[in-house]
């Protein structure tokens, strides 16, 4: 007799998902599926649309990370039209982008994944959320968290129209220059962002690293997986969100490959299984199918932990000190502990805050020249745009006709890279936690913590 256990829906996550665990006659896990039952079809219904509308249309893939799609799309248009933004426009884009990384990561820290470690995995279900967190952390902390996140979102809104719906990206620039008033707002907000990022890291240290029961979770074999890692780095190999080359390391930490974003399809391949709408990415040179349960050599991970694993360091001083601290804590690199995603994410929050301050302080950013008008296409052309979305590397590829109408597009989205690793993490957690067919609420949440650490976005992943 086999038995099936369903966690449906999985929660505190962007998009629809369910976990189905199959137990054999002895009550042991024979299979655990992480299934994504949604598919919208952006790659079809964006065909025929005007190219310049793509940054606005494709941001609808995700209401949580619209800014990531907006930026990748705008960069794809730069490439399609063969035009570069003036320096001020590039800096304005980056300013918005780093404010976005800050607020988007905080959503996970305080609303989605964070309650698992801020409150502990065993608090009652009804409290394991932002409301329970507000009760535990107190009104002044919660107010500060919301206010600081809102400041970052206001930076985006002032420049891009809305944090929910950024519209400022155009091929070769942005739709308006930065005003002195908005710049001053960003400068002052970024001070608060840096302070709050440090406070959050202190909290992490206090509530997680210094509490034995919690810190054991950080290094628990339950949440450990050796994989390759992939992420964007700058010219000197450091963490980069807006632009750079793509670096891949193997499970031993050795450089596997480094390539330009436009060449990504030479290295990565998407695969399909019948039971989920999420396509899974694998390393192309691994040479065979790599689905959950298969040999792990084609599996790689992206997102906060992967980015820190592939980077040689961080360009801003406070975040770099935290990066050193984290790497020293684990001793060996790359760090394969999935729960370290939570830590890496907080370090990126600090980096994004410091970077927001740097960009807002840039002497060039108030320059009124924010657009280079592209020339008409004349022939069929294609363009690729990439950036590091909060959840991992994002690629938009467009092909347009001479009238700049989209003929086809290809979207390779952050969570897809992690798909195989997430499936393995869930299987691993389920098979280690369930031994006698007994599945309690305590166990299901610990299984959910295995995917939640990645902060998956399933709406993005299936698009």
């Amino acid at each position, binding site marked *: 007799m086999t038995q099936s256990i369903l966690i449906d829906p999985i929660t505190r996550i962007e998009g629809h998902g369910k976990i189905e665990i199959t137990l054999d006659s002895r009550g042991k896990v024979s299979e655990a599926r992480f299934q994504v039952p949604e598919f919208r079809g952006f790659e079809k219904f964006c065909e025929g649309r005007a190219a310049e509308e793509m940054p606005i249309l494709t941001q609808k893939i995700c209401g949580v990370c619209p800014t990531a799609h907006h930026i990748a799309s705008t960069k794809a248009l730069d490439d399609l039209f063969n035009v570069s933004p003036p320096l001020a426009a590039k800096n304005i884009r980056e300013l918005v982008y780093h404010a976005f990384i800050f607020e988007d990561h905080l959503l996970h820290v305080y609303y989605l994944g964070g309650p698992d470690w801020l409150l502990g995995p065993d608090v009652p279900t009804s409290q394991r959320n932002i409301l329970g967190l507000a009760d535990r952390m107190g009104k002044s902390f919660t107010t500060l968290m919301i206010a600081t996140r809102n400041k970052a979102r206001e930076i985006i809104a002032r420049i891009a129209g809305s944090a929910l719906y950024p519209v400022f990206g*155009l091929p070769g620039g942005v739709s308006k220059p930065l005003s002195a008033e908005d710049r001053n707002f960003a400068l002052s907000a970024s001070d608060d962002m840096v302070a709050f990022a440090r406070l959050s890291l202190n909290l992490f240290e206090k509530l997680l690293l210094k509490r034995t029961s919690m810190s054991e979770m950080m290094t628990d074999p339950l949440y450990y997986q050796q994989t390759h890692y992939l992420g964007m780095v700058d010219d000197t190999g450091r963490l980069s969100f807006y632009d750079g080359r793509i670096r891949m390391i193997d499970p031993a930490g050795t450089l596997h490959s480094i390539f330009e974003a436009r060449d990504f399809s030479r290295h990565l391949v998407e695969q399909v299984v019948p039971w989920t*709408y999420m*396509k899974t990415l694998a390393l192309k040179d691994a040479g065979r199918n790599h689905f959950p349960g298969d040999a792990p050599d084609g599996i790689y991970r992206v997102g906060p932990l992967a980015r820190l694993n592939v980077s040689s360091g961080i360009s801003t001083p406070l975040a770099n000190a935290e990066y050193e601290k984290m790497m020293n804590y684990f001793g060996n690199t790359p760090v394969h502990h999935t729960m370290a995603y939570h830590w890496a994410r907080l370090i990126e929050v600090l980096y994004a805050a410091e970077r927001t301050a740097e960009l807002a302080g840039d002497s060039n950013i108030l320059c009124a020249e924010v657009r280079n008008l592209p020339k008409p296409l004349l022939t069929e052309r294609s363009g690729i745009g990439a950036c590091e979305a909060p959840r991992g590397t994002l690629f938009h590829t467009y092909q347009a006709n001479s009238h700049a109408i989209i003929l086809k597009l290809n979207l390779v989205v952050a969570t897809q890279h992690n798909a195989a690793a997430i499936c393995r993490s869930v299987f691993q957690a389920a098979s280690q936690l369930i031994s006698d067919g007994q599945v309690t609420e305590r166990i299901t949440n610990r299984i959910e913590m295995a995917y939640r650490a990645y902060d998956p976005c399933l709406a993005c992943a299936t698009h």
Partner: protein
Amino acid sequence: MNKPKIALYWCASCGGCEESVIDLGEDLLKLAQSAEIIFWPAAMDARFSDLEALADGAILASLINGAIQQEDHVSMARLLRKKSRYVIANGSCAHIGGVIGLSNLHRPEEALQKAFIDAETVFNPSGTIPGSEPFSGCPLPRPLNRVRTLDQVIDVDYYIPGCPPPPELVKNAIFSLLENSLPPKGGILSENRALCRTCPRQGTLPERLSVQRFKRVHETEWNPLQCFLDQGIICLGPSTRGGCQCRCISANMPCRGCFGPLDGVRDQGANAVSFIASLIDATDPETIAQIISEIADPAGLFYRYSLAASLIKPRS
């Protein structure tokens, strides 16, 4: 402990409407004092079985966002309808189909074929399309033959427009509901004025608006203080409901119509087409045809958010 119960759910959605609720910020904490959020998968732990176990009508209101694109969206919408005294369509997709409605320009099989077989980065030698072949375990929900709005599958009491809706509108809707001060059933919970009437550039309108050439945003520069239409850039402000605080205009970009039509307008796209056509400053058919040909992708522009709610029949 008999607080009214609220449920928040998503169908074919991007999560932006959920983010609007998160953006209530401290008001979300206030809401939790006067109501119990009983089901909200994006932010709280609960299972479908918890929802099914509730008595019919046990929920005061369900806010449902997203378009109706798959079988499971229909069954969830029906379940929430049965359990709720009020259903509010939250955001453009539930209200008028949203960008997901553009799927009605083709058949669902074409979208599956494109993503899982034709995409250049896909390696799929067996031609597998998820859900199309038998497998053990939980079945995958199948797409409907066309995308529908929420009120095409269940009775809807109110609508919050916008993609995504501004948090202020969501907040007003929820608190009006708790205070029992909502307008008559069927109301769209935003103002009933065209976006133009709220636009900071309204004062720059000439006596008679006329266009001799339509320009696309990537190929032109424009005066950031002047009406977009007066500069030949298509803006859907005249045929779109206001209430968004002109967020795109404030970023110096034209309106794309996410708030949907005004009261009494059956088809937002048709309304926009007729308005834009009335601006064309020419009389001979050849010049008119030339001017119209400059409008890139009219279907995707005029029906950006409202195709599923329009009079246009989907491709069969």
